[in-house]
Structure formats: structure tokens, C-alpha cells
């Protein structure tokens, strides 16, 4: 062959390749289209049933929804009476003892048409608000509307056991949303049923094509109990949102800062969606919503609402008066279609947001517990929520313990360090040194400890996946067994950190990111990257198959159990890999299964910042938030979560030696009833500089911290030793920057954040300090 021929041959080959590519692209396009037609076929048959025709929605064209005498009584319990207006779908719950009632629409007494947009006037009078996607126009945007504006109807009204059932119909959009409302004891429950829910993809428009609208989300009775701000009559009111430990949005006639809505997803963002909120930098430094609750207090009435079914698909939405309307209101917004990020290049730097076609199925329910008088406070709300969890056996009272408060000692094993030719390992605390630390702390007066070993896995702190055996450099499995025996001899439990179990970056371990990693809805592998630690989030199937072995190996080390972190109790992600995608709901069930297995096979399980669904399986929750997300819309942070947990699960504040402001942190920990926690290494803190993955661990050297640890511990112990198994029954601000926490055994703890001493009645609290008053004796630090 001459050069010329060869060149021509190459040209031909290139042309052939180009044609092949073009051909395959066309083929795929064609196939997609065909597949679409096929899919539309059966759906068309299945959804051929026409919408039930209902009575026209009868609401006066202006003015508020007011409960008329003519409303039908749907159900009664010993305490409550439920009355309903079948024409509008609104209901009213009356407390029979006090005669006071709750309306599913805004309080008519505060209605004023001034400054209200027509859209919001309709929103306020509608029993539900929806957002939908105009599927044939734009798949990346939603339209917000309500039953009235969309010329909806109510249909199929009937009374059922304990309440009523109603279908909300949107004939123009082709939606049918079946709802039941029922009462039970002191609670009213609203439910969107899966059975009978119709929307665009399951429904046909007149011309036989699928209806163009797809349901994106529903807010059912969003203005249940909504109140205007009435500071004038001296009544206190606020909305409770689960921001961090709990946040209050006060009823104010004038807010200094105009904010939008408070709208946050329960259990944080879904990494498989790469959602808009997750990408925006503001998602940083947020405390994710850990509890599916919200509440409202107005004067002597209050409710606390728990989202029960479909919490994983809900956003907590709250708006103070002045945002859109004069009403303060809070609600759950249930998502029916997720918005996800679809990258169009391999670096994921370009792409677009779009709604998925697949509807998220399942019932969605909210249970409003109605409170009044003394119980109508945030601590009352927390107490009622705790009671509900205890009734369901999700929480249990912990046994009384005469021992001192435990010091939560997190030990830092070691990590990888960069090397010139090969990477090395930098040990920070060997198992032998761990014994020395424990022994020394004990000799310094810390008589109770709970120990967690971090960075114990072979390969060090920044290695995720395949953690066993324990690093040889730290003493190996044998060393860990020794340490466990040493700790148990002193009656201290020893846990291993399992925060890395849902992540993987181990080489040659059988884990392949492209096969076993978590797949996003945009079909990419979900990466994890933080301060030099890169890994892949493990897919749910791999997680399940590898989990049993982990538990066995943990038990073989003689330790008490694992502390679970991301992916097991926090970090709830759906997974679109494998043959059948795992929805967020299924992922939650799987996490529960894994945690149940861990709870039954290990002696104990701890959770790092665990969300409410992890609480039944945890003996201890670490890193409970002391602070919210600094949104201006949230006026105040309150220990709602801590009031729920205290006396039910032991919990700790974030590490004292990692806090932004350790002094305020200490006071807040005492106010919130949290146990103290430290992350410590035997090696000097300077050694952290050499590690790959500990850039955000500021200072851990035991020698430098030991005295401080003991001093802080003694303070905590003085305050909280006597209330370890008690529940918190009250929490309030007694003066500017002075707070009081009351326990059910009569102990009261005051914390003064101000610089000046506080003196009020029976107690005196020095500035930047605290005071404790038990049944008989009082303690000061």
C-alpha cells in the first residue's frame, strides 16, 4: 500500500465511523419515540375511566371561609367534634371541653381584603394548593394554583369511620385527589390517599393523548389554624419549624426583614436528585430538618403536627404574616414529582433541571395534635410529640442511672499521609495509647465514659469501605479487643465509628463505583467530596449485601457496637441504579431494616446526628444541633429536639474542641441537657497537618486538652448528673439572655449568657454561667 492509499483507507474508515455514530443516534431517537408510543398505549386503556363528576365548589366569591351552623358533623370522640362542609371541603374541629375550635381555613376574624392579591385571596379560601408541570410546554417549571382558581370541584363526599372522605377534582388539569380527614383522641389527621389519585400520566385528555399536566406537589389544608399577628391584645403566637433543634417564627405585626417562605425538605436534600437547593451554595452550613414536625401557637391554643406517611417526600413550609398574606401559617408540602439535575457532560458541569415523569406513590398524612392552655407552648408541643413517639414504641423511657454523667470520648486513630513515592500512614492514637488516655482521665476524676474510636479502619480516617481489619499500626484486631476488655473492666462502653459505611473509596475491594455506587436520577454516580476525602456514595443494594458481614466482624472485636452516620440514620437518598430504582421511601425502609439488624445483632448502636426515623434504633445520638441555620425568618432557636429526646435517648452536643465558641457552646449544652463530647488524639495536634483527610479537625492533642476536658466535664456533671433519666417538662426565657430548663424530677437549671449577673426571685446566676436547683440542694459551678 502506498501512503496515498493508506490515507484514503483511513478516510474511509473515519467516514464509516461517523456514519455509524449518526446512524445509532437516529436509531436511538427512533426507538425512544417508539417506546414512548408503546408506553402510552396501555396507560390509555387503564385510565379510560372518566373522572367522577362532583358538585360545584360553593364558596362565596369573596370573604373568608366561615363555619356555618349548617356544617355536617362527621365524627365525635370523647374530646373532639369534627364538622365538615361538603360543598367546600373545609372542616372544623371543636374541643368539646373548652368549646374552642380549629378551622381548616384561615381565622375569619382576622380577614382583611387590604393588600391581598386575588391569587392569594383564592389560595387562602381553598382547601388545597397544588403545583403542576405543563408537561408539553416546559418540564422544568411548575405552575402554582389552588382549587378555586383552577375551577376545581369536590366529588365523592362520604362519611367514613372517624371522619369523612372527599375527592378534590381538577377537571381542567385532569387531577383527582382523594382526601380523608379523621379524628382520634386529641388529634385530627388529614390524609391524601394513593388509592384513587389520578393525574396527568394516568389520565387522558379529550383527544386521547395523556393529559399535559403532571402533579408536582400538594399542600393540603395549608391554612389550618392560620392566624393573623395580634400583638396588640398581648397574646403570644409563633410558628414552630424544625430548623436545627427547633425554630420559632414569631407572630409580628411588623417584620424588620421581608423574607419569603420557610421551605425545607424533611430529612435533608436527596443526593440522587442533585436538586436546585443542593447546588445553591446556601445549602451549605444548614442544619437539615431532622424531625417531620411543625407547629403553631396562638394565645392559649396550639397544635403540633407530625407528618406520618410520606414524610420523606415533604417540605415543611411556613410563612409569617406579611409574606403573601396577613396570616401566619405552616404546612407540609407533599412532593409528587421530584425535580432533578440532568448533567449533559461527563464532568457534570453543564446540565439542566427537569421534573421526572414517574410519580412518587404512597399515602401522605399529617396528624395535628391539638393543645391548649399550659400545654400550648413549644415545650408542650415537644412533650406531645414525645408522647406520640412513646405510644408507638419509637422511644422508651431510659432506666434511672445513679452513675455520673458519661463523658463522650471520641478517639482519633489515624489517617493516610501523602508520600513522595507511596502514601504513608500517620497514627494519632493507638489502642495502647487509648488505654492510657482512658486511664488518665479516670485518674483525673472522670468516672463515667462512653468511648468511640474514629479512624480505626485500615487505611485510616479518609478511607471509606472495607474497614476491617483494624489498622495494624493501631494494634490491629487484637489491640482493639484488648482495648474493649480494658474499657469493659471499667464499665465503659466502646463503639467503633461507622460513619464511613455508606461511602466507598477503597481500591481492589470488590466495590465498583459504576456498578455499586448510588445512581442519581440523571444516571450519574453520586460522588462525595470533602476536604481531600473523595468517595462514592454506596448504592442501597450494595449496602444491603455487605452489611451483615460488617456486623459480624464488629461483634468479633468485642466492642459494644457501631456509631452510624451518613447513609444510615442521616442522609436519605433514593437510588436510580439497578433494575428497579429505589425510591426515597424504599430507601428509608431499607435504612430502617439495616438499623434494626444492627440494633438486634450488636450490643448497641449510636447515631451521628440521627434523624427522627433513626431514633428507635439508637441508644445515643451524637452531634445533636445546638443552633439553627441562621435564617432571618426564624426568630429564635429552641431545644424542641432535646425536649423530645431527654430521658428517652442519651444525646451529646457537637465536640467541645471543635466548637466555634466553646464557652457559649458549653452553656448551651447545659441549657439543652446534652452530654459533653470531645474528639481527642494521643499525638500532638500538629500531626493533623500531615494527614490527608483531617483538615477540618482543628485541635485534638490529649496533652493539651486533658485539663480543659476534665474542667468542662465537671461542670456538665454538676448540672446534669441528676437529670439523666428525667424528661424536660418546661423551657423558657426568664429574662434577656437567661433561660430556664425544668425537669420532671423538679430540678431546674438556669443558664445566663449575658455578661452581667442575673438575680430573680429565689435564684442568682452569675454572668456567663449557670445554676442548678434540685429537689433540695442547689449547685453552682
Amino acid at each position: 500500500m502506498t501512503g496515498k492509499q493508506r490515507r484514503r483507507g483511513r478516510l474511509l474508515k473515519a467516514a464509516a465511523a461517523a456514519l455509524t455514530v449518526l446512524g445509532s443516534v437516529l436509531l436511538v431517537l427512533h426507538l425512544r419515540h417508539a417506546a414512548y408510543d408503546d408506553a402510552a398505549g396501555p396507560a390509555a386503556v387503564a385510565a379510560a375511566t372518566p373522572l367522577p363528576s362532583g358538585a360545584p365548589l360553593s364558596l362565596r366569591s369573596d370573604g373568608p371561609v366561615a363555619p356555618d351552623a349548617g356544617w355536617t358533623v362527621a365524627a365525635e370522640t370523647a374530646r373532639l367534634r369534627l364538622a365538615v362542609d361538603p360543598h367546600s371541603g373545609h372542616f372544623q374541629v371543636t374541643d368539646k371541653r373548652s368549646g374552642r375550635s380549629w378551622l381548616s381555613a384561615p381565622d375569619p376574624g382576622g380577614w382583611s381584603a387590604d393588600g391581598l392579591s386575588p391569587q392569594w385571596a383564592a389560595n387562602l379560601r381553598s382547601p388545597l394548593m397544588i403545583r403542576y408541570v405543563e408537561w408539553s410546554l416546559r418540564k422544568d417549571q411548575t405552575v402554582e394554583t389552588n382549587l378555586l382558581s383552577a375551577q376545581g370541584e369536590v366529588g365523592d363526599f362520604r362519611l367514613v369511620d372517624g371522619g369523612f372522605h372527599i375527592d378534590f377534582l381538577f377537571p381542567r388539569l385532569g387531577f383527582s385527589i382523594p382526601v380523608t380527614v379523621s379524628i382520634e383522641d386529641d388529634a385530627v389527621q388529614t390524609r391524601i390517599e394513593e388509592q384513587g389519585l389520578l393525574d396527568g400520566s394516568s389520565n387522558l385528555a379529550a383527544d386521547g393523548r395523556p393529559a399535559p399536566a403532571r402533579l408536582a406537589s400538594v399542600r393540603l389544608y395549608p391554612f389550618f389554624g392560620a392566624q393573623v399577628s395580634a400583638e396588640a391584645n398581648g397574646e403570644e403566637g409563633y410558628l414552630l419549624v424544625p430548623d436545627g433543634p427547633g425554630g420559632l417564627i414569631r407572630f409580628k405585626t411588623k417584620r424588620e426583614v421581608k423574607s419569603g417562605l420557610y421551605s425545607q425538605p424533611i430529612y435533608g436534600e436527596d443526593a440522587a436528585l442533585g436538586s436546585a437547593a443542593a447546588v445553591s451554595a446556601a445549602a451549605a452550613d444548614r442544619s437539615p430538618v431532622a424531625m417531620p414536625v411543625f407547629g403553631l401557637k396562638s394565645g392559649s391554643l396550639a397544635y403540633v403536627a407530625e407528618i406520618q406517611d410520606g414524610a420523606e417526600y415533604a417540605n415543611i413550609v411556613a410563612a409569617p404574616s406579611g409574606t403573601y398574606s396577613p396570616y401566619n401559617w405552616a404546612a407540609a408540602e407533599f412532593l409528587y414529582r421530584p425535580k432533578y439535575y440532568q448533567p449533559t457532560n461527563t464532568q457534570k458541569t453543564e446540565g439542566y433541571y427537569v421534573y421526572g415523569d414517574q410519580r412518587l406513590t404512597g399515602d401522605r398524612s399529617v396528624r395535628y395534635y391539638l393543645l391548649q392552655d399550659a400545654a400550648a407552648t413549644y415545650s408542650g408541643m415537644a412533650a406531645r410529640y414525645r408522647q406520640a413517639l412513646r405510644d408507638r414504641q419509637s422511644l422508651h423511657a431510659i432506666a434511672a442511672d445513679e452513675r455520673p454523667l458519661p463523658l463522650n470520648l471520641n478517639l482519633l486513630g489515624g489517617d493516610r499521609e501523602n508520600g513522595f513515592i507511596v502514601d504513608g500512614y500517620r497514627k494519632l492514637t493507638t489502642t495502647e495509647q487509648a488505654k492510657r488516655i482512658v486511664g488518665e482521665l479516670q485518674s483525673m476524676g472522670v468516672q463515667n465514659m462512653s468511648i468511640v474510636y474514629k479512624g480505626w479502619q485500615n487505611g485510616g480516617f479518609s478511607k471509606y469501605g472495607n474497614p476491617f481489619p483494624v489498622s495494624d499500626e493501631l494494634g490491629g484486631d487484637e489491640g482493639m479487643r484488648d482495648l474493649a476488655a480494658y474499657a469493659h473492666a471499667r464499665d465503659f462502653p466502646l463503639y467503633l465509628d461507622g460513619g464511613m459505611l455508606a461511602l466507598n473509596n477503597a481500591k481492589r475491594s470488590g466495590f465498583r463505583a459504576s456498578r455499586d455506587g448510588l445512581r442519581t436520577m440523571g444516571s450519574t454516580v453520586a460522588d462525595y467530596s470533602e476536604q481531600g476525602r473523595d468517595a462514592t456514595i454506596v448504592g442501597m443494594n450494595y449496602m444491603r449485601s455487605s452489611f451483615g458481614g460488617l456486623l459480624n466482624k464488629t461483634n468479633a472485636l468485642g466492642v459494644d457496637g457501631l456509631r452510624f452516620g451518613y447513609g444510615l440514620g442521616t442522609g436519605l437518598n433514593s437510588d436510580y441504579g439497578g433494575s428497579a430504582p429505589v425510591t426515597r421511601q424504599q430507601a428509608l425502609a431499607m435504612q430502617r431494616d439495616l438499623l434494626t439488624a444492627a440494633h438486634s445483632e450488636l450490643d448497641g448502636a449510636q447515631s451521628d446526628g440521627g434523624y427522627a426515623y433513626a431514633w428507635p434504633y439508637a441508644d445515643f445520638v451524637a452531634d445533636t444541633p445546638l443552633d439553627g441555620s441562621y435564617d432571618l425568618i426564624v426568630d429564635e432557636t429552641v431545644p424542641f429536639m432535646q425536649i423530645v429526646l431527654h430521658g428517652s435517648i442519651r444525646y451529646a452536643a457537637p465536640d467541645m474542641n471543635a466548637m466555634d465558641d466553646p464557652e457559649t457552646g458549653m452553656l448551651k449544652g447545659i441549657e439543652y441537657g446534652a452530654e459533653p463530647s470531645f474528639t481527642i488524639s494521643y499525638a500532638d495536634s500538629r500531626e493533623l497537618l500531615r494527614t490527608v483527610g483531617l483538615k477540618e479537625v482543628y485541635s485534638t492533642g490529649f496533652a493539651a486538652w486533658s485539663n480543659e476536658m476534665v474542667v468542662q466535664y465537671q461542670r456538665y456533671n454538676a448540672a446534669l448528673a441528676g437529670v439523666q433519666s428525667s424528661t424536660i417538662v418546661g423551657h423558657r426565657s426568664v429574662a434577656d439572655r437567661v433561660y430556664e430548663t425544668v425537669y420532671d424530677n423538679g430540678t431546674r437549671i438556669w443558664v445566663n449568657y449575658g455578661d452581667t449577673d442575673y438575680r430573680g426571685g429565689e435564684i442568682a446566676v452569675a454572668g456567663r454561667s449557670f445554676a442548678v436547683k434540685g429537689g433540695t440542694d442547689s449547685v453552682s459551678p
Partner: protein
Amino acid sequence: MGSGTILRRRRIGAALLALTVALLLGASAAAAAVPYQTYTLDQRGRLIHLQPAYYPDGLLGGDAGLSKPQDLFVAPGGDMYVADTGNNRIVRLDAAGRTQQVYDVPDSPLSQPSGVFVAEDGRIYVADTGNRRIVVLDAAGKLAAQFGRPDSRLLPASYVFEPTHLAVDRRGFLFVATRGGYQGLLELDPEGQFHGFFGANRVQVSLMELVRRAVYTEEQLQRREKLLPVSIQNLALDAQGFVYTVSHDGGSEQVKKLNIRGDNQWGGRSFGEAPADPGGKKGAGGADSAAGAGANLVDLTVDHGGNVTVIDRNRHVVSQYDTSGRLLFYWFGTADVGNPRFGVAQSPSAIASGPNDELLILDDQLGLIQRLKPTAFGRSIYEAIALGKGGSYDESERAWQNVLQMNAHFTPAYEGLAKSSIQKEQYGQAVDYAKLAGSASLYSDAFWQIRLQWFQAHFSLIADMVILLAILAFALPPVRRRLKGRLPISSGWRARLEGWRRRGHAFYLLRHPIDGFTALRYEGKGSYAAALGLLVVTCVALALRSYYTGFAFHPVGRGETELGSVLAPFLCIWLSWVVCQYLIGSINRGEARFKDIFVGSAYAMLPVTVAGVPIILLSNALTLSEHAIFSFLTTAMIVWTVLLFYWKVQSLQNYSVGETLLSILLTLFAMLLLWTLLFIVFGLTSEYLQFLYAIYREVTM
């Protein structure tokens, strides 16, 4: 999927997306943390994550109803004066943010006032931008004076007097920043008469502009828009009389500290940090796209200690610098529109320091003032810096230890410790600290002392050694001569020796380069084995160079560089040289075979080993004061290598001098082409794959 579907693309910066999951996951760990991230950069530009140096303390001015306020001045007592631009007035708030007084000058109404300054005597100076004048009010708010455009021959006719910000010094002289005033600050005397321009920025000339100037004709140059310096955006004064200016952007010297003569004390420095990418290891500039915009530095403030804080309106970065203009730390956080957050200004327009070290940041979108206070960590750093300046080394050491107790990653603290260790004559410790701080000069200072002490301690030994060596030098040659040729050697050893001798040719070559290379070509002295052996030796020498060079000359910690990153560039360049030289030679009447060039190029690298290794050893005994020796030897080594390459080409290809030079130039050019081609091929291939992937995504959606 409907064919008419319209999808709007959202292009999102790479860094932004890199944040995604990292932030998502970091969230649970970030409980009880302020809504922004604080970082600093160490001497080598590495990013260090810090706990916050300031915490959000209050939100002020809510009841004043401010509208697009553009300036904030804090009086020594804590009273705050706000230029309430949108409402055409000045508002005085007390330290708690309650409105005290409103100045709207009824007899001569203000229009869009965007600057305010209060002199020590209580007179209020207002840059009344809309009216193009400066208004002076007495303490009660009565109009005391007003200055329009100064009347001076020295002021260009085209000069537009639109004052935006101003400051008044002790003498009563006014420094005025004007809109579009590229001439610098306008300096007015107390009567409002023109005194001069002050602190003009220099024109920043880009490389492209230099090329244009060289290539364009006079006429073309005249037609081009004239390059003007960036105008000064804002200014501040400190107690010592320094004038600080800040300009929008300009690559460097965005912030200047000017003395009374207008000399910049902070020349050559760059200010205004870029938001860091928390997921990566990169420092400033690595993730500009995170905020999707360039810097827009709008204001600065000087606190009692002389630390300067600068705000960036576009990127929401607050950066703080010490008195010498060195970065202390910077932080950034963003708030979504509609969801403002405590401690994060959505649109910062002005910044001021309060009497108790607090920072007050004016937000013109929310019409509020965010108050930040230093945390214990922030305070401890200020304290340590102040003590270091005061010269009390014991106290300074304790203060730096205190900083490290809070954050062991804060490497500037090790610098402070190294300094005090040197002062306390604990040089061994100082060396350790200097290494942690990555400071070559401190290391060098400490090592100089250690070396001196060692010499003093071992003086007699050294003297003895010198004498001994001298005796040996005289005595040895005769002995060696007598031994020569008497050693019995077996034939196997002889063969092995022959192999060594071939490598030994290397040493012959060093002494007689031209003959040596000629022998490679025509006497078959070289072999691939020998060349590969030499290459390996060179690689080892390069590795040693990167790993064992003295810290004073190579201030990089062990393990921070990887072997691959040292060797890969060398091998790539070397190999492309060999290939290109062969190709160029073959079309240019060269006589060398590929093998000759390969072997010859390996031999030509000899100085890197022969001279390089001793230099590495020597560098461990030298300090920066002997820098000249080190750089001379290194240069000599390089020159020697280059000469060997020259002779190599000349001898192997059998060229004349001119031909050799031409051949070398052509080879270098060919290398450039080769690399460009490779980049293009790889670039296009990956682009093509990207394109296919995008199509696939689009189709399967």
C-alpha cells in the same frame, strides 16, 4: 417526549457543582456553625479551613426604614451615620441601632447622598452625589458649608465632579472619591479649594496591549480608546494618617495604603480573595466561577489595630489583612434571594469598624446593618500579632500557642513561634517551626545559627581533618602508582569490567565532550543499555533534588510533591527532544541514527547527576545568605548540560556551528509543534466524546 419541548439550559460553573454533594453531606457535621466558611491561605497559597473569626451578633437599623443605603460611618462613641441614599437623607443610629436623628437638610435638600464622614469636631461631611456637591453640616445638622466643583486651572475642563465617598484628615483636608475619577482622589483644602489629586491608580497594561503597541501604527493607536486607570471606589483613614483606597478590580493593588506623600506601602500585593472551593485543595482563584462573577470590592475599613477589612459585593467575601497587607483570613457565605440569613450580607455596600472591634456591614438590599464580633479564635490571633510587634517574645509565644490550641492548622502561628524561638536562641525548635510554617527565610536564619554553633563546637576537629587531608593528598599518589597493574583479574570480571568501562565512557565524555560524542557515533561506544542506565541515574538525581535539597532553597514539606510529578515532565520533554532531533536531523543532512541521539541525549544529562548531587548535598549546609553560591552552581550545571547537548548535536550529526544552532532551534520548534498537536488531538477527542455523551443524554432523557 414531545418534540416541541423547550428546555432551558442552566449552565453552572464547575466549582459550583463540585460543591453540591460536599455541602450536602457536610451539612450534618456543620451543626452549630455560623452560615459562612472561614479560610486563610498559608505562605504557599494552600487553603486552610478555620473556625470563624467573627460571629453574627446583631441586626441593626430595622426601624430606620433605610432604602438602598450606600455608606456607613461609625463615630468613636459608637453612633452610626448611614447615608440613606434612596431616602435622600443621613440617619444617625445609636450603637444598638435605634434611630437618633435624621438629617435631611430642609433648606437645601440632599439628592442621593452616597458618602458620609464625621470629623472629630462633630461636623458631618456628606457626598451629595445627586447634587454634585459636598455638604458640611454642623453637629446639630444645620448646613455649615457646601463645596461644588472646585475652581482651579489645574483641574481639567472635562473633569466631572460627582463625589461618592469622602474622608477628612486631622488638618481638615478632604479626600474625595468621585465617580469615574481616574485621576485619583480629589484632595481639597478646608475651604474646599482644589489642592491636588492623590493616589491615582496605575494603568494596568495587558500582554495583548503591549503586543498592540508594538505592532500598531501611530494612527491605529490613536484611534483606540485611551486606556485609563481604574477609578478609586472608596477610601478610609487610620489614626496614623495613612489613607487607604480600594478599587473595584485590577488584578493587583486593589487596596492601597498610602502615606502622606501618596506612596503605596502595600505595593505589588493582591487583595480580595475568591471564594474557595471547599471540596478541593485549591486556594484563591481556583473557583472564581463559584459566585459566577468577578470581584467587586466596594469598601474597606481600618480597625484600631490597623487591620484592614475589605468587602466584595459580587462574591460576598469579607477579607481581612494585617498592617503589612498580609491576609489574616477571609470568609464567605451566600443567602438565597428571599431567604436572607443572619450574618451574611446579601448585597454589602459599606463596612465600618466599631469601637469594640466589631464589624458593621451595611446591606443595601435589606436596608440593614449586620453586626459581627470577633470570636475567641479571632481575638487570640489579634492578640498574638500585637504581642509579636511589641517585642515580648515570651508572651507572643504563649499567645501563638494559644492560637494553635484552637487550630493546629493555622500555619502562620508556627511562623510566630519560629520567630520567638530564634529570639530565645532555641534554634533547633525554630527549625522545626519554620518547616511547619513553610518559611525558607526563618529556616535559614535558624540554620545559620545552628551551623555557626556547630563550627564553633567542632573547630579543633575540623582543623585536624584539614591537616590530615593535606597529608593524604601528598602521600597517596605514589602508593597508587605502585599498586597499578598488579591485581590479578579473572576473565569473567574482565568482561564485567568492560561493561563498566563502557559506562565509564561517560566520564571520558565529560572531559572530552566532542571526542566522546564522536566516539559514540563512530566507534560504537554507546549502547541502549548504558543510555537507559544513565537515564535511571538521572531520574534518581532529579528525585533526590526534589526530596533532599535543603529546606532554605526548596521550602516544601516532605511528601508534598509526588515522584510522578517530578519525573513525568522531565521524561516527556526528554523523549520529545530525542524524537524531534532525530526527525529534524534526518531531513537536514544529519548523520546520526536514532540510537545515537537517544544514547547521546542520555549522556548529555550527566551534569544533572555529576554536579547536581553534590549541589544537593551542599544545599543542606548552606543558608540563604550563601544563596549566590547555590544559584551559581545550579546555573553552571545547567550551562554545562546545555553545552553538552550542543556538542552532542554537533558531533553526532557532524554539523558546523551554524548548522548546529539551526538544528537546535528547529528541534525546539518541532517540539512546540508536537506538543501543540498532541494537545489539540487530545482536546478534540475529549470534546468529541463530550459531544457524543451530551447527545446520548439528550436522546435518552
